[in-house]
């Protein structure tokens, strides 16, 4: 696994050259619109637009595919729960008296027998999946396109305490190390005859639980090593430290922020005045 690529994309694009504060503004505005819109079609378009932006700035397909694979069980769970149980809220949103059955559970099934998946509930589930995907895609879009040092400086300029800003940056750096560690531990377990593909779910959970022992111990050890290294490099968390490359808002940042503000304002106005983005079952 090539860890730096997981953490940072190096393609020089308009978006990647923006100041981290501008990217945070974009993150906030797009997240707010995604949260506001309940319409699955518009939510899908927004998600595809953010996905396109990710690909445009150079986030790898491998990473996006990995993220989608990891999240798929949660998305399925969202579809199931909304399709099956989200009745009152969807009725209120649509203003209807009844929902449209798509699939009815046999009455003989315990607890959920006789319930049905509704078309409107499933559509609302799709909308929630799109919202979640939009949030998740905004993270690599804004974070991977930013030099970790610029990320720290940007947060400090936003008056986030330096120690906290550094912890955010260090965590981003640490995740790939942990993933690498998990992969290595799973690999070595396989070499002792543990074939996960031949195991049932309970056995797998047991193996994962055992995996956590060396992963946590090695992660703690590495975290301690990194802290020792940082102390040796005069790190004290002092907010008055200086920076080789300071953070600066330039003309493209102001123009992009103005565009964001206008687009966000328009989204709010259309939503509250004509219901643009509301759920339609």
């Amino acid at each position: 696994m090539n860890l730096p690529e997981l953490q940072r994309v190096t393609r020089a694009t308009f978006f990647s050259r923006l100041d981290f504060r501008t990217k945070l503004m974009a993150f906030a505005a797009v997240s707010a619109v995604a949260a506001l819109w309940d319409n699955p079609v518009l939510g899908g378009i927004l998600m595809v637009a953010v996905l396109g932006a990710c690909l445009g700035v150079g986030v790898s397909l491998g990473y996006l595919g990995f993220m989608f694979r990891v999240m798929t069980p949660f998305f399925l769970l969202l579809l199931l729960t909304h399709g099956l149980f989200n009745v009152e809220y969807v009725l209120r949103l649509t203003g209807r008296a009844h929902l449209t059955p798509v699939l009815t559970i046999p009455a003989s099934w315990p607890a959920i027998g006789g319930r049905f998946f509704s078309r409107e509930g499933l559509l609302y589930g799709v909308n929630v999946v799109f919202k979640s995907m939009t949030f998740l895609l905004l993270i690599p879009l804004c974070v991977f396109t930013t030099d970790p040092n610029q990320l720290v400086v940007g947060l400090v300029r936003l008056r986030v305490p330096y120690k906290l800003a550094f912890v955010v940056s260090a965590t981003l750096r640490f995740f790939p190390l942990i993933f690498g560690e998990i992969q290595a531990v799973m690999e070595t377990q396989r070499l002792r005859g543990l074939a996960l593909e031949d195991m049932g779910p309970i056995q797998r959970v047991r193996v994962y639980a055992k995996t956590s022992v060396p992963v946590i111990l090695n992660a703690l050890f590495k975290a301690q090593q990194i802290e020792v290294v940082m102390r040796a490099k005069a790190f004290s968390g002092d907010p008055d430290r200086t920076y080789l490359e300071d953070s600066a808002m330039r003309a493209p940042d102001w123009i992009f922020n103005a565009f964001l503000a206008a687009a966000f304002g328009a989204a709010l106005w259309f939503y509250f005045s004509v219901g643009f983005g509301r759920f339609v079952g």
Partner: protein
Amino acid sequence: MGDTLPTADAIATLERVSYIYPRSERPALLNLDLSIPRGQILGVIGPTASGKTTLCLALNGIVPQFYGGRFFGRVTVAGLDTVDHPIYELARHVGMVFQDPETQIITASVEMEVAFALENLKLPAPEIRARVKAALEAVHLEDVAKKHPHSLSGGQQQRLAIASALAIRPELVVLDEPTSQLDPRSTEEVFTLVREISRSFGAAVVIASHAAEEMAATVDRLVVLYGGRITADGPADAIYSDLQLLGRAQLRPPDVTAAFFHLAARGLVGTGPLPTRLDDGIRALALLPKAKPFRPEAEPAFEPGALPILSLRGVSHTYWDGTRALDAVSVDIHRGDYTLILGQNGAGKSTLIKHFLNLLAPSSGQVLMDGKPVASYSVNEIAHRIGYVPQNPDRHLFNSTVEAEVSFSLRAADLPAAERARRVDDALEALDLVRHRRMHPFALSKGDRARVVVAAILVMEPEVLIFDEPTTGQDDWGARAILELTKGLHARGKTIVVVTHHLGLMPGYARRALVMGAGRILLDAPIRDAYHADAVLEQTFLKVTQVVALARASENENYALTPAELAASFA
């Protein structure tokens, strides 16, 4: 003894220093008195757990300020007491370089990495820029200033760590095992740089390392630590040529010194101080009568007629980022082989091994076990045929007792209970772990943990055992113990593969060597021929051992591999 008392021109002094880590009863340092003059290169040697790292960490206050524990005595650096002054203040005077290149990297570009400490010290940006430039030029990394540190080789990463330390313009640079994970070329780069630091910057240097040959050629003075105490302190030549002293401390001398010890034992040289540097050895050798041609017949690497158990047929492998790690490699490992796989970091050794273990699928070509594609075997079948001992044993340990760890591998095996118990007992016995069987694996020392992993592999009674860099980070005693274990297993009919870039210890164990470079097999030959193939070794950034260099200097046809053989060639 050397400069043990505080002196006026000392950059650091230790007075009656003892230290006990939290939750430990045994002192890591005990009554240390040491004075480090400005500009001196001080080497620190000692077996594993002798206190080398603790001493290094005490020099910038990390011990005891970060770890806590019980600290006695006084350490001063640049006149500052390391207990009274915070670490970030001491960091203005002491630059640190640690063992693991990867975990030292904090930022995402080479220049930011060097700038990190300077930013913490609140230097103005123009000053930081000037210092970063100068430090990168000093370590010859100015061309990669914008790159991500992870894209550098291990040697370059350590040079970057040194640049980061130099940029603060410290009066003392401390390097703790900086080359233990590096190949010989990178090791040489780091030691060359240490000499340059001392010459150009005038900084005192403290370096702890097991690399006896490079230490002898670099340091002015040596301190021997054993059980947390200083057992010797003096000029490097005097200490490295005192084989009794080194033996008592479980240390090895440079190869050249060992060779002259054997020559002295045969009465071929006087009993005066033995040379500790290669160039001194070659000069001394020129005074001796010419050596005889020496080339014992090579032992066959495997029994005649033995079938290959593992084979690669034209295997290439390209990683997803485009790196071609293997390039049309064809090789057979026969039953009964003891094969060494040599090559620089990144030569393709690990990728090759992962194909044998079916952890990677070839981009093209075939991987066979007993003539059948390795992918056609189940995970369990492969695990019971090929045992893999990784460089980091801790990734293999996930049970709560040593016994559970060793028996874990048999959980999926269809064996009667009595047979399982016998195998576990045999493995614990073979690895001298019976007394630890009820202990938690992580409660053991690193050397013992490595033995637990070997026991957990042995219990499956695999035909092939692959050891990945088994001697890395081990002292001489630990490395020999592991290699003796491989020798015993080989004698019991196991096929052994050892992956390493440390050539010095392997003669006497391996019979065959595969030299890899840039994803190819550059040479497949008996170990004696491979060790003397200097042009091939050079291609993969390895260099001949000191014994081989001495043999070649003495006689063109002298193919000696060990100090004893070299001495025999003069008889």
